[in-house]
């Protein structure tokens, strides 16, 4: 952001753009792919997090439980089918994220050439 941004943004400021206009019209379009990439990777990590959530949340079903915790709870309750169903859902999310990530990498790769 520092590397590619400064000149552009200063140019926008000298042309009379406000700080907000500079951000939305110059900064954001430049970093949109990097930003989306960050959001997706971050969501993926958050979705899959287990240890920290397990300790902190208290595992109250339907309230502070997350998908990975739910898999454990179901598994411990011997509801194997339900557990595998939820786990499959998680796996599907993982595949989706991977696809999105690949798409964005292709996009930004192209934009740089």
């Amino acid at each position, binding site marked *: 952001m520092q590397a590619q941004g400064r000149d552009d943004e200063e140019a926008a400021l000298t042309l*009379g753009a406000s700080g907000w206009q500079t951000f939305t019209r110059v900064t954001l379009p430049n970093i949109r792919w990097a930003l989306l990439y960050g959001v997706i990777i971050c969501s993926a990590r958050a979705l899959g997090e287990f240890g920290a959530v397990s300790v902190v949340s208290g595992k109250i079903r339907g309230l502070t439980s997350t998908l990975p915790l739910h898999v454990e709870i179901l598994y411990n309750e011997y509801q194997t089918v339900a557990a595998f169903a939820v786990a499959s859902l998680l796996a599907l999310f993982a595949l989706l994220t991977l696809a999105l990530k690949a798409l964005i990498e292709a996009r930004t790769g192209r934009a740089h050439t």
Partner: protein
Amino acid sequence: MSIDVTQIGKQFGTFTALSDVTLHVPDGQLVALLGPSGSGKTTLLRVIAGLETPDTGRVHLAGQDVTHAGPGERGIGFVFQHYALFKHMTVFKNVAFGLKVKRGAARPTAPAIRDKVMRLLSLVQLDWAAGRYPGQLSGGQRQRVALARALAVEPRVLLLDEPFGALDAAVRQELRDWLRQLHNELHVTSVFVTHDQEEALEIANRIVVFNAGRIEQEGRPSDVYHYPASAFTYRFLGRANLWQTGPHGQTLVRPHDLRLSPEPAPGTVPAQIVRIHQVGPTARLELSRAGDLPSLEAYLPARDAQPFQVGQQVHVTPTAQQTYPVTPS
């Protein structure tokens, strides 16, 4: 619009970029800020633009104090060395940007914007490129787009930071001519930064020479060139021969101010021609002198240089010279 900067000081950490700089630029001038890198010329330009806040001193534009005004409120246009075009916008949108971000009644209607942008693009001979992206243009073309973009908001002052620094020699020459012509047509007060003395001497009305964060000299190109106030300016503005070091200081001579003759005369110094290099209308001769006197370089018109040969003994005298006290550096 006139520009006045008064006693500007600016530090970056322990580095003094500007120290007590005062400068008046009258309305309608084309001024060059000239100096080596790190001498403070770009910092002063950025202070005038409002992109840098000075530690001390004031900036006035047309008599109005703008020291604390943002860059967008000053009525300036700024051109960056590396173009700073918006890569994700077409050339048209780049030029239209300054008009589209205006608020309320100040913002022209869409047809008015289109007319103006196309007029500017034909001014810079790039109307055919309106739909292209900056990445599809050459360096010279990009810089012309940047100029059109800066002019779109009708700035009362045009500030250019080494505008031709990133371009090839041939393109640079073309854009120099073009900037001068543009200034002749629009008469907008313009300040440009350069480290190329030839560029400054060629297109500016006034030259401001910077050295180590201070203004070393200021004046018309011919005055600055012919009467440099210090050895620094003399050496920075063109090649200099050290003719001799005497009790009053060092005497400097330009290569084209040396006269050569085969016969000795009063005031001449003997020398031997070591090398003759002639391409184009000027011949460059390298001369070595006896003893520990430094060697000399002389530029002669090609026809005057014809009688001389490498190895020949000649007698040299300066037709113009400047003497400066030797400063401990």
